[in-house]
């Protein structure tokens, strides 16, 4: 997902009466409580997208926090100064108590956002969410036409249902964000996806290139775009932004493999973001559990969420710059990108304290970039679908 806050599209110079709070009063210096928190209320999901951002080792239903536990978490978040919560998953609507959780969040004054695959929703259910105080809906799309989109989702009828739910969303006067995760097998549909977002009366479109960890890393050979595809994507996004100014805001996330500078992942570890996993772990990033050797504290522990954020070992391990090794340690960009993504550094180098290989200054950058480039030009199109069994290989036409 994209950065939760700090949209570069909003001007924030002093002459402007509106400013992005995150930029004006940075939490970065004080590690103040984040403005928004991602709640992954379940890992259960009827879709099987091969680039799912959930960890490969998913939390089973039996480990999920109970309704009362989530309500206690929501109350605590509001008390310590969190302003927005994103209900995500897995598929958050797989939880029967979601209406109750949205209602409770609204009652405590939290701004609520639903990040959904939409396939489990009915119009009545969405209406109940709206009545409970839901403020915004984000629906993921896998493409623009049934066969290809349903193949990526690993779920027949998904695309058709998503279009229907998007329509209900606007009928209920809820603002809509279309989230389109992009990769080699759907990038050619980008112009149609942009038009689809306009036709659905969305306010925002996230054109999010896959980020390659967890499930996506397992599927990298089938998903990695070519450099030419990426250049074309950037051109299309820039043209559409200009053409649709005032109609559709477009957020654009490039795949960092093809960047020279790594992304400032999560705004820097433990600086402005945390999420809570289905089992109640408080995490610096939704992929953080992929880093072995870190012990993440739970909301079920004796510690408060604020204490975990400020004091726990996992949050402090990669905070700031003290943990860095070369080339990060003496790099002039160390406080700009904080060495990139810790999860990616761990996945690709075996040590989360290494420079993210997305950075051109990493000794591994060249090797990994070349490998990705080869994969992008290759013939491998078969998906490993995401599920609780550790993944299932695609069968049929694209299968082995």
């Amino acid at each position, binding site marked *: 997902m994209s950065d939760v806050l700090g949209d570069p599209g*909003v001007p924030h110079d002093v002459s402007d009466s*509106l400013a992005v*709070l*995150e930029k004006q*009063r940075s939490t970065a210096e004080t590690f103040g409580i984040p403005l928004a928190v991602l709640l992954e209320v379940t890992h259960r999901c009827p879709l099987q997208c091969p680039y799912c951002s959930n960890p490969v080792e998913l939390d089973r239903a039996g480990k999920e926090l109970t309704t009362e536990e989530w309500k206690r978490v929501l109350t605590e978040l509001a008390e*310590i*100064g969190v*302003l*927005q919560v994103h209900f995500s998953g897995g598929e958050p609507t797989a939880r029967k108590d979601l209406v109750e959780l949205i209602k409770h969040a609204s009652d405590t004054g939290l701004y609520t956002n639903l990040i959904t695959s939409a396939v489990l929703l009915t119009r009545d259910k969405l209406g109940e969410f709206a009545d409970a105080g839901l403020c915004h809906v984000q629906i993921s799309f896998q493409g623009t036409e049934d066969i290809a989109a349903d193949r990526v989702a690993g779920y027949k009828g998904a695309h058709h249902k998503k279009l229907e739910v998007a329509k209900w969303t606007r009928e209920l006067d809820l*603002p809509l964000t279309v989230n389109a995760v992009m990769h080699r097998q759907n990038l050619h549909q980008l112009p149609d996806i942009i038009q689809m977002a306009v036709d659905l009366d969305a306010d925002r479109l996230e054109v999010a290139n896959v980020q390659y960890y967890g499930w996506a890393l397992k599927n990298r050979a089938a998903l990695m775009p070519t450099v030419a595809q990426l250049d074309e994507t950037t051109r299309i996004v820039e043209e559409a932004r200009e053409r649709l100014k005032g109609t559709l805001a477009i957020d654009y996330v490039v795949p960092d493999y093809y960047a020279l500078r790594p992304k400032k992942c999560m705004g820097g570890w433990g600086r402005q973001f945390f999420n809570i996993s289905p089992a109640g772990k408080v995490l610096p990033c939704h992929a953080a559990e992929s880093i072995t050797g870190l012990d993440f504290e739970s909301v079920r522990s004796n510690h408060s969420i604020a204490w975990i954020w400020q004091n726990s070992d996992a949050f402090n391990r990669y905070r700031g710059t003290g943990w860095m090794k070369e080339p990060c340690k003496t790099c002039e960009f160390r406080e700009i990108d904080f060495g990139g993504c810790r999860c990616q550094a761990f996945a690709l180098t075996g040590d989360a304290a290494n420079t993210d290989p997305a950075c051109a200054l990493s000794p591994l950058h060249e090797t990994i970039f070349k490998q990705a480039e080869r994969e992008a030009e290759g013939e491998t199109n078969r998906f490993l679908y995401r599920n609780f069994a550790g993944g299932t290989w695609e069968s049929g036409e694209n299968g082995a």
Partner: protein
Amino acid sequence: MAGPRHISVSEASRPVLPRHAKLKYDETRKVWVILAPERVLAPDEIAVEVLQLCDGIRNVGDMADQLAAKYAAPRDAILSDVIAMLQDLADKGFLTEAREKTS
């Protein structure tokens, strides 16, 4: 259905925050904020004062009257400032117009 996406703010407009933009006092950070999808905005004091008058009942002219009286300032200057500020908000999608009731 949703209110109009693009509005042109005039003296007769009766602006109101759409349901997805919420004006709130943040007790932790001691600052007014507008909560919006994926964003938190920090309006300045004047913007907050104007936004608190945006109830979908008052029109912009009423607001200018009220602020001119309160600050003993020329109404024309206030009116143009208020319109500019609200138009800016509307252009960013954080303001809509109260709709006429259909009889």
